[in-house]
């Protein structure tokens, strides 16, 4: 599934200053029973967001109308746990296009890149700055500039650059995915398969 193109995203952000946010929080296993990729956003952070009787938990950030936007800002080691791409789908389906943290779990980062959600890893200090700015003023605008590989707090001009491989960057800017690439080199793959050690 080729995805949306990503260039420059300017948005307010939703702050979630919790460390080790794992995939079972992002989307609990009991919501993995679908055979299509629809509706996962409704269950993003299900058990932090809703009480057992399905009423919203007022103190959870997604239920606080003050915070909104296409950027989710999380604590260190975001997305640890399971390989379920459903976690990234839930983030995307809810409306986020970018997740910012000071550290990402590997598989989650990969899954995000594969579906068009940009993981932006910043320094712990910059992460603190973002949290402070957003808590002080929920209307704080962040600019994520993929071509330049920078993230900026627009009010103050505070800026940091982030890493992404040039291959993945091109993919995201153009909305290509890995399957497009692999399909194009299929004959090379088939030749390779003939000379495997076993």
């Amino acid at each position, binding site marked *: 599934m080729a995805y949306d193109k990503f260039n420059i995203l300017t948005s307010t952000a939703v702050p979630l200053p919790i460390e080790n946010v794992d995939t079972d929080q992002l989307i609990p296993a009991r919501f993995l*029973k679908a055979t299509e990729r629809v509706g996962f956003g409704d269950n993003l952070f299900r058990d932090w967001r809703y009480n057992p009787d399905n009423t919203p938990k007022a103190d959870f950030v997604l239920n606080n109308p003050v915070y909104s936007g296409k950027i989710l800002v999380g604590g260190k080691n975001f997305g640890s746990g399971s*390989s*379920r*791409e459903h976690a990234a789908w839930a983030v995307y389906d809810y409306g986020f296009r970018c997740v910012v943290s000071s550290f990402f779990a590997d*598989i989650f980062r990969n899954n995000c890149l594969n579906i068009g959600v940009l993981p932006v890893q910043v320094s712990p200090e910059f992460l603190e700055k973002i949290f402070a700015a957003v808590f002080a003023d929920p209307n704080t605008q962040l600019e994520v500039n993929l071509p330049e590989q920078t993230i900026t707090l627009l009010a103050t001009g505070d800026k940091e650059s982030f890493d992404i491989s040039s*291959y993945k960057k091109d993919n995201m800017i153009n909305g290509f995915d890995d399957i497009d690439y692999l399909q194009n080199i299929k004959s090379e793959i088939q030749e390779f398969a003939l000379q495997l050690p*076993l």
Partner: protein
Amino acid sequence: MSKTLFDKVWDAHVVRKIEGGPDVLFIDRHLIHEVTSPVAFLGLKSRGIKVLYPERTFATADHNTPTINQHLPVSDPLSANQLKALETNSNEYGISHWGLGHQKNGIVHVVGPEYGITQPGSTIVCGDSHTSTHGAFGAIAFGIGTSEVEMVLSTQCIMQPKPKKMRINVTGSLGRGVTPKDVALFIISKLTTSGATGYFVEYAGEVFEKMSMEGRMTVCNLSIEMGARGGMIAPDETTINYVKGREFSPKGEAWDRAMEYWKTLKTDEDAVFDKELTFDGSSIEPMITYGTNPGMGMGISNPIPDAEQVEGGVATYEKSLKYMGFSEGQTMVGKKVDYVFVGSCTNGRIEDFRAFASIVKGKKKAENVTAWLVPGSHIVEAQIKEEGLLDIFNEAGFTLRQPGCSACLAMNDDKIPAGKYAVSTSNRNFEGRQGPGARTMLASPLVAAAAAVTGVVTDPRTLIQ
């Protein structure tokens, strides 16, 4: 140039390197299950492409299956639909399908090795993070997302940057009552849940050399819980004896060729790792977790650490203890246990049930404990019966369920109720992992057995004759 075991296997599978990007990696064996594959098949359909090598993919249903009355229709319509989708997709694309009720059905990471699908030197992926289990055979094995499942189905390749390399040595020998699970929980407690992120781990040293294949699988299985992409152990006599004669293992001349190749699969003496750690095996105690990630573990006789002693934010730590209903400084021994779960791809193999039996033999299940014993596969189930373990369990008041992932992720009905405490041999103690509100303490089958017969957290060393 000198190479590590990991380099040797990885480099042999690189189809091409992309400048400023990932490697295109050829995948020898692909395992799929009902939960993370349906959307990948939909992707194939919408693009109008076929499965390139259907004989390299194997399907089993495990995550979402009941563990009692498997002969009856699955009652949850969503689960039934997912199981049906796996069957239909497998049949349509010519993939071996070991569905519910099939003799070969079981947890994907248990049946892969049992049937010889898992082999030294191969690359193995599955849409499940504990695919790292197969690294026990000297394979590169790791979990992937659904987009990557689609890549492997359509081209037998995925695109991955080559991870950094770490070696973890555990020297000496293990004390009484200390199992491979304790070794893994110990390492994770030292490294934290993100300490190995970006790395592929090789486990080396006497402790692993002496370990059985089952034990090695337990250790490699848990590599992901410290953030590593995977973990592996060089193949040796123990590995070869395990692989020999299994259904999908090489035979005849192919076996001889494989043996020659497998012998080369070890880290060269002067090869360099990006990071290397060494622990003393004799310092490891039976472990238990007290928090909501697998890094929050400690020797069972220790008190719960103070927030200042642990790495990471105090707020996150306190949130975690609050969820568990524990406080800093408390000891775990003596805490009440409501549920005991023995199973999963971490500890659902025959050795785990033997260990459990060694403690419960001649005793009685504590009345306050509900115990779920879930074998990882039909082979394990049959072994439990053949070896007389089932009789020991029944006499002690335990019953055996049917194979599946069960309470490891609680997608089926095997959910620990909110607020209840479970000693679990599985791999994750995240909030709600074993059911909304469930409180999980991860431990070895011996610790699980000790809890099951005493009704409280108990040091198994006090019960070993």
